[in-house]
């Protein structure tokens, strides 16, 4: 089934909507926390467009307050966002026939949530139309990148708007509400359901334990150290099968 550009775009927008239930509160809380960390409103809003990656923006709002060296902050963002490389590798066969401009645009919009619906759309329609490998030959009629664009733009717009609402509310929400705790809770919700095999449990546990031991490491390099130890242990446990 080959759809027109517009109907692909529209299906992408529609597919993204259920995910916004989680994204919008997240963006609002980011806005509240950014102001709480002393980031001025304009910079807090710009960060949502420039970095455009929720979890790393949360972590940045924490690091901003601790006086960590700039380079460590940037390195931490890189580690937190490294998972997007996985998404990049996964969608790359489908984007191969596109013009470079499309690749740069869709790369910018490649978030957890846009990836989640777009890859399902790509793989789902592959079943009817053949594999990713041979769809390069039908690039004239394949408009599935418009679906990706629709979902990506929907998420982008909601992220910017919810950030703005959070910034607006930031001055109103008292600190005793402990809203910063939603960061830990969101991550718990993302990690726990995916601990399906021994290797990923080992990766999570060792990273967690190391993070407590090295908490006092100079320059707050503890997070990077802990994450690397978790990745290495995950690989070791998996390799022993």
């Amino acid at each position, binding site marked *: 089934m080959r759809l027109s550009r517009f109907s692909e775009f529209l299906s992408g927008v529609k597919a993204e909507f259920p995910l916004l239930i989680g994204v919008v509160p997240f963006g609002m809380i980011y806005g509240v926390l950014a102001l709480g960390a002393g980031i001025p409103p304009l910079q807090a809003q710009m960060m949502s467009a420039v970095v455009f990656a929720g979890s790393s923006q949360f972590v940045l709002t924490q690091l901003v307050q601790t006086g960590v060296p700039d380079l460590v902050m940037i390195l931490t963002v890189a580690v937190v966002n490294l998972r997007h490389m996985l998404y990049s590798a996964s969608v790359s066969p489908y984007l191969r026939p596109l013009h470079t401009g499309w690749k740069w645009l869709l790369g910018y919009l490649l978030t957890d949530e846009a990836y989640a619906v777009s890859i399902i759309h790509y793989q789902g329609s592959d079943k009817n139309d053949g594999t990713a490998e041979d769809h390069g030959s039908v690039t004239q009629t394949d408009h599935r990148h418009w679906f990706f664009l629709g979902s990506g733009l929907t998420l982008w717009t909601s992220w910017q708007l919810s950030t703005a609402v959070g910034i607006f509310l930031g001055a109103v929400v008292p600190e005793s509400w402990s809203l910063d705790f939603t960061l830990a809770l969101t991550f*718990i919700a993302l990690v726990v359901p995916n601990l399906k095999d021994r290797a990923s449990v080992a990766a999570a546990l060792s990273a967690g334990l190391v993070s407590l031991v090295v908490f006092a490491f100079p320059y707050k390099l503890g997070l990077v150290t802990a994450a690397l130890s978790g990745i290495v242990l995950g690989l070791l446990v998996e390799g022993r099968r």
Partner: protein
Amino acid sequence: MNFWLVMFASGLVTYAIRLSFILMVGHRQIPSLLMRALRFVPPAVLTAIILPEIVMPGGNILQPLQNARLFSGLLAVVVAWCTRSVLWTILVGMVTLWIIQILIT
């Protein structure tokens, strides 16, 4: 801290990670060790952020019994496992935290 430098460098690094394989020319194979390692990035990174947050909030090591975040966090783990829902996990975790905070003070 140079805020502008941190923001734009963070944005650039994130964009580069997202573009990495999309812009790669040709049908180059992705190194299998890298692919295997990437699978462990989310659990490792996110757990390393979570655990200090709930075990020693604000950098202070608290008595487990006086730590409202530890208890709410553990309950959230159970809710996350059973419901697989971000919304329920946040809701139960926050309400538990608020109740304990009211009881303690």
